[in-house]
């Protein structure tokens, strides 16, 4: 802004602006008197209440997905999108899907989800915890649309939650880690200290201890789900501290790449990351959301959808360990197959006592099996995990 023209304007202010503002304020305040009748969609075309209420809409069944990260993250969001495409493929032209990526877990999420609802989508998937409150609000305004919230804990008449038993995947790669490690020190690059992640760290350790009781696990928290440079640096710190096999609960391939760079080992997480670490990759613990997506969409289309909370694992085909490297010794591989088969037919339980927490106090008595309630509330490290949990108070 040039100085002389500004100074010139200082001497001749206009009254245009105050008038304009006064007008705007008057307009907005007068809007308070009117009450908007239709509570339907804010942005864009609004589906009329009639078609929305009936079960059969003309045309294909519209399903929308909200992703927190980029589809190209090679991890969490990539897994969801892969499943979306598989579901679309399986259900054919009767279903039409769309997605919005990089939707932040804040006020913007509500707008995006609300827009999805008003665009005629009959089923909306929100793929991260932080969409919980926004989805609840939109669900209240769109009673005829169904909502599915991943990893959350609040439900409504038309909103239910779904999740995958990632701890089963963590346990299985733990078995491999225990069998491969030479230093008996494992490392985990962890994201945010919520029960799911702590449970995964613990399950990983339990799995490793089942083949190598001397194993110790070190943990570094990056406080982010997705931050490749930080994840790489955390991985380096773990390797420097003596770990030779790494696991992660974060979303990029940086941890595996760092292991590769250092000539050590690592696992893929959420998706198959084998090509990111040709020498380092031992296996990938993957989530396959497609069986659930297929069921959810089919149920919604045929009127069988109802609220609740679903938690699927190996048994239902949601969790698996893939691309197991040739470097894993035969006996360890066999053990993994046994575990997997046991999880599949329900004969094997990971969280079965005796299990002790870090201080030695027993949390599960011998032969006692943990129920889902126990699993959801895990807030402690098991024996063998080093360090202190970032505590709340």
């Amino acid at each position, binding site marked *: *802004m040039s100085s002389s023209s500004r100074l010139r304007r200082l001497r001749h202010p206009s009254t245009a602006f105050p008038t304009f503002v006064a007008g705007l304020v008057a307009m907005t305040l007068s809007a308070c008197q009117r009450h908007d009748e239709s509570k339907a969609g804010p942005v864009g075309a609004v589906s009329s209440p009639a078609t929305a209420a009936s079960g059969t809409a003309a045309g294909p069944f519209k399903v929308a997905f909200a992703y927190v990260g980029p589809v190209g993250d090679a991890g969490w969001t990539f897994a969801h999108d892969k499943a979306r495409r598989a579901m679309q493929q399986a259900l054919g032209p009767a279903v039409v899907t769309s997605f919005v990526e990089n939707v932040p877990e804040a006020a913007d999420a509500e707008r995006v989800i609300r827009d999805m609802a008003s665009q005629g989508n009959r089923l909306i998937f929100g793929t991260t915890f932080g969409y919980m409150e926004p989805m609840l609000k939109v669900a209240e305004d769109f009673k005829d649309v169904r909502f599915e919230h991943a990893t959350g804990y609040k439900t409504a008449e038309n909103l239910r939650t779904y999740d995958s038993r990632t701890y089963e995947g963590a346990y299985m790669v733990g078995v491999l880690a225990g069998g491969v490690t030479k230093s008996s020190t494992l490392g985990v690059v962890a994201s945010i200290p919520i029960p799911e992640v702590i449970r995964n760290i613990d399950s990983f350790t339990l799995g490793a201890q089942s083949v190598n009781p001397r194993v110790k696990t070190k943990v570094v928290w*990056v406080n982010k789900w997705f931050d*490749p440079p930080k994840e790489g640096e955390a991985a*380096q710190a*773990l390797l420097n501290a003596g770990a030779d096999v790494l696991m992660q609960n974060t979303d*990029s391939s940086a941890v595996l790449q760092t292991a590769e760079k250092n000539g050590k080992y690592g696992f893929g997480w959420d998706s198959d990351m084998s090509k*990111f670490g040709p020498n380092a990759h031992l296996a990938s613990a993957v989530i396959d959301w497609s069986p659930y997506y297929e069921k959810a969409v089919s149920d919604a289309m045929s009127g069988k959808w109802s609220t609740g909370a679903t938690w699927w694992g190996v048994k239902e085909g949601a969790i698996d360990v893939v691309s197991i490297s040739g470097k894993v010794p035969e006996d360890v591989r066999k053990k993994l197959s046994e575990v997997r088969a046991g999880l599949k037919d329900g004969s094997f339980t990971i969280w079965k006592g005796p299990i002790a927490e870090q201080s030695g106090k027993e949390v599960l008595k011998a032969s006692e099996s943990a129920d889902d309630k126990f699993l959801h509330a895990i807030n402690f490290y098991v024996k063998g995990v080093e360090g*202190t949990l970032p505590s709340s108070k």
Partner: protein
Amino acid sequence: MEALSLFVAAALDSGTVLALVALGLLINERAGVVNLGAEGMMLVGALAAFAIDVHTGSDGLGFAAGAAAGAVLAAVFGVLAIGLGANQYATGLALSLFGAGLSAFVGMPYTQAQLGARHHFAVPLLSRVPYLGAALFEHHPLVYVALALAVAEAWFLFRSRAGLLLRAIGESPESAYALGHPVRRLRFASVLVGGAFAGLGGAYVSLVHTPLWVEGMTAGKGWIALALTTFGVWRPYRILLGAYLFGAITMLDFYLQGRGIQVSTQLLSMLPYLATIGVLVMTSRNAAFVRVNMPASLGKPFRPE
């Protein structure tokens, strides 16, 4: 002790990115131009380097591409801020947004790609020295380039005629212009150099530090590099030291966690930023010291009429 030497190595690795970018920015700042677009230039450099490396398999070409991409983006800045005399701060900000968006957009097909096997570098003989070897002599060549760069810049700025001219332009472009020097052309050149190094720093991130491409992968390092030029009072060695210090503090959090020591990670992560403010305060306190070192025309557009 071994953990300590590995920690030093990690700090050097992390600090090199900052050093490369900050030392490049020093050149254009010494000429009086502030380019806030460092983050954008780093990101396009990172993407260009990664993409070229994926297609050609050559790290060298990758680094060259990164530097070139950074310079091209810097040229856009130069045309606006120097050629048209636009506000440098606003133009730089626009550049950082644009660079971030452009790299994310163009980079979409590369998020699933990966590079060939990474080399492990070690200086012969010296890397065998116990502890010191692991700490200092097992790094990628660019780490040593950053060191050499600081030395070269110190010589260039304070012991060469060309450097003297650059500093003169930074102190008083009007005077330099009156003496017949093509001030705007030289400033433009300095901006290109700054951009090239920012791009090179970005290339280091995507080719060496974390060999992959993901949008926004520099995660604020460009802004820290900008702070470093002030932190180092526009002197190359101080900037280099500041960069390593930052690298160390960044790694300190993870290092302590790896040893089982739990400090509140958020409070620990604040350290680099608080440290910058602290040093800023200490160095600015002495107004004379700052006046001597800070280019007087920094941020002011020069429009010969």
